[in-house]
C-alpha cells in the first residue's frame, strides 16, 4: 500500500525536474528519499509490532483473570485449555460475597487508604513547606534524619511498632500507661497511624515548594497575613500537581498494603481487601475462580482512579520526582 503510494508519487517530481532543473529533484535524490521513506516505514512497523507484543504480554494476565472469574469450575479445570469461555457465570462473585465480609473489607480498605491520602497530603505538605520555606533552627538536621530513615528496611521495626500499637495509651481499653487492653490490635488504627505521615511524601512535596520563589509571601506578610494563610492561600494552590501525584502514589500503596495489616488485623470483618485471598487459598486447596474474582474486584477502583488521573500523574513525576 505504502509502496504503491511511493511509486505513483514518483512521476510528478520527475516532470517537475524536466521543467525546472532544481538540484534536489534529480533521480538519485528521489531514489534516496524513497529509500529513506521505506526505511522509516519498516522502522515504524517494527516499533508498533514490538509495542503491541509487549502490551499483549502486559494485558494477558488481566484478560486471563477476567475470563477465569467468569467461567464455571468445570471449564476452569478442563483440558485442553480454552482461551475463550463458552459459558458465563457470576457464581464466583456471588461465592466471594457470601464467604467473606466483602463490603466490610472494601470499606476498611477505602477508609485506611483515603485517610492515609488525606493525612499524608495535608501534614506532609505542612512539614515540607516548613522545611523548605520557613527554615527554622535545626530544619536541616531533622530533615536529613528523616531522609536517612528511608534507607532502613521496614522489617527492622516490625516487632517494636507492634509493641507501640499494643500499648498505645487509651486505645482498646488501655490505661494512660498503655497497659490493660489490646491497644490498636485488630483495629484499623493500627494500619492508619503508622502510615499517616510518610517521609517519602514530605521529601516529595519539598521538591515542589523548593521550586517556588520565597518572595511570593513577602507582600502578603506585609499585609499582615500569618503563615497559615500564606501557606493555604499562596503556596498550596501552586503545588496542586504535586499533591495529585503524591495522592495517587499514596492511594496506590495504601490500597496495596498487605504485610502490616496481615500482622495486626485479626477478625475477618476488620481486615482489608488485600487479605481476602487468604480465604480461598489455604495450604489444602486453592480455589482459583473466587481468587480471580477478588483480583478483578480489587483492581477496578485503582484502575478507574488511574484513568482519571493519568494526565497529572506523568506531569507530576516529571516536575518533582527525580531531582536530587
Amino acid at each position, binding site marked *: 500500500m505504502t509502496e504503491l503510494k511511493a511509486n505513483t508519487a514518483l512521476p510528478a517530481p520527475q516532470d517537475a525536474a524536466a521543467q525546472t532543473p532544481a538540484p534536489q529533484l534529480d533521480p538519485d535524490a528521489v531514489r534516496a528519499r524513497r529509500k529513506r521513506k521505506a526505511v522509516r516505514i519498516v522502522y*515504524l512497523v517494527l*516499533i508498533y509490532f*514490538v*509495542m503491541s507484543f*509487549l502490551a499483549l504480554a*502486559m494485558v494477558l*494476565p*488481566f484478560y*486471563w*483473570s477476567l475470563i477465569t472469574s467468569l467461567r464455571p469450575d468445570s471449564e*476452569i479445570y*478442563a*483440558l*485442553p*485449555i480454552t482461551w475463550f469461555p463458552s459459558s458465563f457465570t457470576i457464581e464466583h462473585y456471588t461465592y466471594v460475597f457470601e464467604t467473606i465480609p466483602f463490603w466490610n473489607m472494601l470499606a476498611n480498605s477505602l477508609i485506611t487508604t483515603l485517610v492515609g491520602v488525606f493525612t499524608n497530603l495535608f501534614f506532609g505538605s505542612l*512539614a515540607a513547606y*516548613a522545611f523548605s520555606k*520557613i*527554615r*527554622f*533552627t535545626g*530544619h536541616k538536621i531533622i530533615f536529613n534524619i528523616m531522609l536517612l*530513615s528511608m*534507607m*532502613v*528496611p521496614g*522489617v*527492622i*521495626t*516490625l*516487632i*517494636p*511498632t507492634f509493641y*507501640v500499637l499494643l500499648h498505645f495509651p487509651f486505645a482498646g481499653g488501655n490505661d494512660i500507661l498503655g497497659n490493660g487492653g489490646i491497644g490498636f490490635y485488630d483495629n484499623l488504627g493500627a494500619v492508619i*497511624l*503508622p502510615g*499517616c*505521615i510518610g517521609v517519602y511524601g514530605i521529601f516529595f512535596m519539598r521538591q515542589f515548594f523548593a521550586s517556588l520563589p520565597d518572595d511570593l509571601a513577602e507582600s502578603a506578610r506585609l499585609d*499582615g497575613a500569618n*503563615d497559615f494563610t500564606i501557606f493555604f492561600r499562596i503556596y498550596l494552590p501552586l503545588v496542586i500537581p504535586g499533591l495529585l501525584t503524591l495522592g495517587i502514589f499514596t492511594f496506590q500503596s495504601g490500597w*496495596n498494603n*498487605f504485610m502490616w495489616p*496481615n*500482622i495486626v488485623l485479626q477478625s475477618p470483618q476488620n481486615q482489608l481487601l*488485600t487479605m481476602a*485471598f487468604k480465604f480461598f*487459598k489455604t495450604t489444602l486447596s486453592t480455589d482459583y475462580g473466587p481468587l*480471580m474474582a*477478588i*483480583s478483578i474486584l*480489587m*483492581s477496578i477502583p485503582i*484502575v478507574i482512579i*488511574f484513568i482519571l488521573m*493519568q494526565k497529572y*500523574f*506523568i506531569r507530576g*513525576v516529571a516536575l518533582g520526582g*527525580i531531582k*536530587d
Partner: protein
Amino acid sequence: MQEAQSVSVKKKRKGLTLKAQRNLIGYLFVLPALLIFCIFVLIPLIMSVYLSFFESDMFFLSMEYVGFDNFAQVFQDSLYWTSILNILCYTLMAVPMNIILSMILALLVNSDRRGVKAYRFLFYLPSVTSTVAASTVWLWMMNTSYGLLNDIFALFGLPGGTWLTHSSTALVSVTLVTVWQGVGANMIIFVAALQNMPTQVYEAAKLDGAGPLTIFFRITFPLIAPTMYFILTMTLIGAFQLYDQIYVLTSGGPANATLTPVYLIWQNSFGTNAGRQAGYAAAQAFVLFLIIMIVNLLIRRLDKKVNG
C-alpha cells in the same frame, strides 16, 4: 476582634524576636510529622536495637540479655544465608531486567506517534494493581496443569515449565512476576526524564548524521544517568525487601529456593517460627540493613566513577 488581634501581634513582636517567631511557626508546622516519625520510626528503631541484644518474645515480656549472641548466631545460620543468597540472585536478575526493559518501554512511548498514550497506559497498568492480586493471577497463570503459560509453551511445541513448583525454576518465575509488575513505574520516571531533556541537542546530533544508537549511547544515556542512579537505588532497596509476592506465590519454597530475608524475619517475628525469636529476628533485620547499605555504597561509588 481586630483590636485584639493587633494587640496580640504587638505582644508577640515585643516578647519574641523574629527568629524565635519563625522557629515557633516552623516547629508548629512540622509537629504532626515529627510526632508520627518519632512514635513509629525513631522509637521503634531504638527499641529494635535494644531488642537485638536480648532473647525475648515479641511482647518484650521475658527478656534475657545475651549480648552479641544473636548476631553471632546470624552469621552461623545457614538458613539466613540461604535467604541472602536467594535475594542476591533475585536482585541480580530482577534489577537489570527491570531497568533495561523499562528503559526500552520509555524510549518506545516517548514520542508523539499515534496511539502511544494507549500503549503507555497498558504498560503502566500492571504497576497500578495490587501486588497480592497480581501475584494470585500469576499463580494461576503458572499452574502446571491448567496454567496459561504452559499452554502457550505447548503452542510453540515446547515442553511445559515447572515454574513455581521446582526449586530450579521458582526464583526465576518470581522474578518474572515482579518485573512484569515493576517496569511500568520505572518507565514513567524514565519518560519524565526524557521529556525534560533539551530538544536542541537531538536536532544538532541528527543534523550531524548520528544514528539512533549513537544518539542513545552518546546523548540520551549520559543525560539520563542521574535518573538511572535514582531508579537503580530505589529498585534495589525494593528488591531486597521482597515479601508480598513470596507470601502469595511460594511461601519461601520449594526447599527454601525462594526464601527471602524479609520473609524469614517475618516468620521469626510473627509467623509459625515465632516464639522466643524476637530478639534474633531483630538481629537478622539489622544484618540485612547492613547488607543493603553496603550494596548502596557500592552503587554510589560506581555512580561517582561514571557520572563524576
